[in-house]
């Protein structure tokens, strides 16, 4: 993995400022809650997120 755990958490926090969920958190969640499902690649995860994020609800104010 990239860097230490603290560094990863900082980077993940900055990403989440812009609304981007964390891939490793998602993978951990899948393994724990839905062990039967296949794990998407990071690319697939990113694409699904982008599609869902800019859907039908306003995410930004004036």
């Amino acid at each position, binding site marked *: 993995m990239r860097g230490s755990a603290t560094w990863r958490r900082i*980077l993940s*926090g*900055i*990403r*989440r*400022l*812009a*609304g*981007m*969920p*964390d*891939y490793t*958190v*998602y*993978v*951990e*969640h*899948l393994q724990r*809650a839905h062990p039967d499902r296949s794990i998407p*690649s*990071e*690319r697939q*995860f*990113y*694409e*699904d*997120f*982008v*599609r*869902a*994020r*800019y*859907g*039908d*609800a*306003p*995410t*930004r*104010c*004036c």
Partner: protein
Amino acid sequence: MFLKYIGWLFLAVAGAIAWGMLALHRGETISAAWLVLAAVGTYLLGYRFYSRFLANRVFGLNDRRATPAERLMNGRDFVPTSRWVLFGHHFAAIAGAGPLVGPVLAAQFGYLPGTIWLVFGVVLGGAVQDFIILFGSMRRDGKSLGQMAKEETGPATGLLAMVAVLSIMVILLAVLALVVVNALKDSPWGVFTILCTIPIAFLMGFWMKAWRPGRTLEASAIGVALLLLALVGGRYVAESPSLAPYFTASGLTIAYGIIGYGFIASVLPVWMLLCPRDYLSTFMKIGTILLLALGILFVLPPLKMPAVTQFIDGTGPVFAGKLFPFAFITIACGAISGFHALVASGTTPKMLTRESDARLIGYGGMLMESFVAIMALCAAALLDPGIYFAINSPLATLGGNANSAAEVIRGWGFTVTPQQIEGLAASVGEKTLLGRTGGAPSLAVGMAHIFSSAFGAGLMALWYHFAIMFEALFILTTVDTGTRVGRFMLQELAGHIWRPLGRTSWYPSTVLASALIVAGWGYFLVQGVLDPLGGINSLWPLFGISNQLLAAVALCVGTTILIKSGKARYAWVTLLPLAWLLAATLTAGWEKVFAEDPRLGFLAHAAAVGEQIAAGTMEAGRGARLIFNDRLDAAVTMVFMVVTVLVLLSSAREWLLILTRRKPAKAQESPFVETAYAG
């Protein structure tokens, strides 16, 4: 016990002294320190005591109750998030151009009215609205404002709320785009920098999608670096006699450019343009606002604007209308903003880890936005009033050149020389700053002043264009995302009429709906650009009225939630701001439509144009268009007012039914589930 409160007592006294200094100070300049102290002191007291009362007594936030993020955790939108990260995320989502522009325009009344409304409006109104909607949505699995209105009050109200949101979106996009047009017209430096953001966003988009999937931070860092390069490159372009003409454009050309851009951005896949722009503007926004706060605290500039100007009588050049009600609709974002109800019932409630976090994020996030508005007000008030009015008054009022402008402004009692006006424009690398209405340019001058005093002089022009770029960047991001959201809403509404139109994946429906939304705000934008008084005059009040009326709708929904959950005795926390908001906004709406002064009333202006045509002083075709636009603006204002009153009436009916026990007080909350988190 007493010792626990002594610090707060001290803060209250310090805040009171600061308010006293602001209110009683006459003549001479006053340090921005007093303004910042009065505001921050009041925020802290409001947060410590009032939001705590709301959280514990009124809403009954309960950390033993699992939040939607915990119960519905899916690793994507429902994710328990650390409260400070979520605070930053929520803040970046609610704070945009609104809190920067409104206070700058309202500075024509002096700094005091705006400050009072921003600070007390947010503590008692705006932050309460954001908090209660976030709370309501959190207790309902992250439902949207429209869905909550539908479930708690009835389907008709839900539909009305949706129509209101859609129309507000159209006006909002038009007025924000107009702010950008006024900042960029005849400015090759600005146009070049902003044009560069498009290829930069494409590059970031491909980086994150194709080359290095999901590496958003890498791409954003590259994006920011290229953006700063484009900023420096802009100076070279502006100073080059061969390149500058290619990037010098009239207001109308830029308006059509933005309209075309908005349409393309709305039909392109989001990863290409919209998503990277969103990252870029989020990081730029947070960074620049932190920098501005540091700068203001470091410089503590003297405020040269009087506490109150003579323009509270309604004769001001920036916008027409008296202090009441127009200060309260000109400043919407920063004091209370209905639009936040959409964000607070969107992504944020799905990410709260604990119920009690809603207090910091809902109430505290809005206080932070209000502080941004206070900083914008400082940046406007530190300018010489003469300079402020030279930038913010319409060109038609100023007579077109620095000499006539200085003359006109001296007539208002502010001293300014033509050399000062021209010297300032030259120092920021522009040919002219006269009549650049819309707030962004004067804010940029103020920010450039602060930054160059704090971080080294001599870079005034670079800082000015940095500030312009920063504002234009996230306004254009709002144009992208807003057009897209408007398109989805229109498709949903159209789906009620003919099924296939409601399918967002059907390409013809997407193109048609996008074109309609863009045509909607594009029409108002072009109308604003062609308006002889600069457009901000008529469009900004229209935006303020619509945003405040949406806040009234949100407060109605909030009151319904309170009464339905058996908290009717606390309903005053939403009814009080609701009453004030309705009084100010409906008065403003009424005056904008029916006032007899043609500077103020749309219909009176139409009549005045009619007389000019009859007298032969106005060309008939142009006059007819102005009359049509006046009537359209009047009709739009009336529609906003009627929709709000209908929502109010249907909500009030519901309140009465419950209070007289003809209907059970039962809110549609999701059932209680005990949290699995320790502590």
